[in-house]
């Protein structure tokens, strides 16, 4: 009887371990026969560029590393922990945020070749996405520049290693943006493996019929492959531009633009409430009550931490004991017009 129990227990344990063990789920690197490959909308942009003779992206996943798994990366991105040795949960990367606090995982711009906050807001509404400070992680592997523009003002020399290295950019985000622990090497590779699953597809880029034909011809060896590769790259941004702006000089007057209430409603719901509703990521709670709108309206023109101008343009700082701070909105993530739209909505709702 003892032997039966022992055997059963051992088998159950092994099965459980096997179930929990993270299998390395990498994009297949098996060489594919060229004859089988046909250009279609669902093809990865990186794949097409490689076939056009372009240089490979500088951040392939190191699959030789143990514990690397796209699923572990997905869990880290969405929930803040991964499954490491033995399949057990790692400690949470950050007590305050997960990647999706500030970044979408879906395409968030209708036209990936420009950064237009208003087009993004409407696209977010149509696709039921939040409107966030961070750039979407969808297509992150297709980018080669990170922490661009004025982020140097915020992070200083930390940007040096992160600006053209996605692994360092992930680490900078983990430690500074998320105010969490440094990621282990296998965790970074796992996140990268997951990012590769979120790579751009040809259908995400806006090609005319003529351009599509040119790509097909170039892939068939009948055109200017280099030129077509350049054409494809022009269809998406290699990095997200970031321009830091200050609140309006006279906060009572604002940016001297007329606000659109409907647009402001979208910003409030898709942006403010994403973090502040029921204290999801913020201690300061917002809702649709008059109290919230009156408070926001009263402070809009003031020099306080409740002023939307203040916190949206400067953000707040992570402090000891209160590291859940608010990142600022760059001009590319919220335009001055949108700030006034939000103000108009708040003013309307307080009545």
């Amino acid at each position, binding site marked *: 009887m003892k032997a039966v129990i022992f055997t059963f227990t051992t088998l159950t344990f092994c099965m459980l371990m096997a179930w929990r063990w993270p299998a390395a789920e990498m994009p297949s690197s098996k060489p594919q026969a060229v004859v089988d490959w046909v250009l279609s909308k669902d093809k990865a942009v990186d794949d097409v560029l490689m076939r056009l003779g372009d240089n490979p992206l500088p951040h392939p996943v190191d699959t030789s590393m143990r514990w690397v798994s796209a699923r572990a990366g997905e869990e880290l991105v969405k929930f803040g922990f991964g499954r490491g040795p033995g399949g057990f949960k790692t400690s949470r990367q950050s*007590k*305050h945020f997960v990647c999706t606090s500030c970044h979408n995982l879906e395409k968030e711009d209708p036209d990936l070749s420009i950064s237009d906050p208003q087009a993004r807001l409407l696209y977010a509404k149509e696709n039921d996405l939040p409107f966030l400070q961070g750039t979407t992680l969808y297509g992150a592997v297709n980018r080669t520049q990170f922490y661009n523009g004025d982020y140097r003002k915020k992070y200083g020399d930390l940007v040096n290693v992160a600006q053209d290295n996605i692994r360092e950019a992930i680490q900078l985000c983990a430690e500074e943006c998320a105010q969490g622990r440094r990621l282990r090497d296998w965790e970074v590779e796992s996140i990268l493996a997951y990012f590769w699953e979120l790579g751009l597809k040809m259908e995400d880029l806006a090609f005319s019929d003529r351009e599509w034909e040119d790509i097909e011809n170039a892939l068939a060896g009948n055109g200017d492959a280099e030129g077509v590769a350049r054409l494809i790259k022009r269809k998406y941004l290699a990095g997200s531009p970031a321009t830091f702006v200050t609140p309006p000089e006279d906060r009572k007057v604002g940016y001297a633009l007329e606000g659109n209430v409907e647009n402001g409603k979208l910003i409030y719901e898709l942006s403010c409430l994403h973090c502040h509703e*029921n*204290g999801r990521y*913020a*201690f*300061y*709670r917002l*809702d649709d*009550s*008059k*109290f*919230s709108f*009156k*408070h926001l309206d009263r402070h809009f023109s003031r020099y306080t931490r409740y002023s939307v101008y203040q916190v949206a343009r400067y953000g707040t700082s992570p402090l000891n*004991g*209160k*590291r*859940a701070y608010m990142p600022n909105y760059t001009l590319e993530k919220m335009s001055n017009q949108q700030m006034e739209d939000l103000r108009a909505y708040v003013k309307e709702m307080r009545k």
Partner: protein
Amino acid sequence: MAKYFFSLLISIFCCGLVTAQEKIYQTFKDTRVINSHSVETLPKRKLDFRVSHRFGDLAGDNGGYKTFFGLENASDILIGVDYGVTNHLTVGLHRTKGAGSMPDGNSGLRQLLNGLVKLRFLQQTSDNKVPVSMTLVGIASLSTAEKIEDNPDIIRSFPKFAHRMATHAELLLARKFSDAFSLQLMPGFTQRNLVPFEDENGIFSLGLATRVQLTKVMALIADVTFPFSERRVSANGFYTPLGFGLEFDTGGHVFQINLTNATGLMETDYIPYTTTNWGDGEFRLGFTISRLFNL
């Protein structure tokens, strides 16, 4: 009646399945009202560090200018932490000085270590299918005071270890009627393992608490607890613990300033031992500072 009771039971046991309706949050802003607990539990992985203080009598024989309106005395002090194990389960550990006493001056338990378990099992929904939020609270207080030998007439004689303990259990039923107004009922039972001669060990009580939101940051709060005991009447020197206060929620911090005639801070203290009377000026200033941390 039976039908309604059955519906309520079904609602309670199916609360985990109530996900389609929009839940009502922040019936109260803090986990305490003034003296009593509120229906709120902490969010998962949040640590709430709390400091509460009750000064001495503001007026009356022991108040006035000679004690600078009670500010030079400390009736009771609480320091402790609560932790959100899940969004619906909070545990806590607090140290209190202990303040209650019988009308004859025989003191209640002192130097208390208080354990708290709080389970929210029902949450109000916007469509009123679940009209109230409900939370169970369990409190156990253990006196670490030095045993006083050779005086069996006082509580601190502690003939047995169990006599150092007092417990309290209550059911909190609360409803947020609007963004500005919440009301809470609190039937409870307090058990003291050792009581003075002719006193009773177990006391049923019913509390009432309310919150009126004045601005986004500030609210008016009040609570009262009626002990159901023939002995606990003003003729015997006992009074109903009643408190009023202002609460400031600045996002992460909750600061509360209040006036109450209760001297003790824990239910095991102020429900059986409130012998101070508002009418005699025996009310005091109190405050609570609560600070949330992500863990």
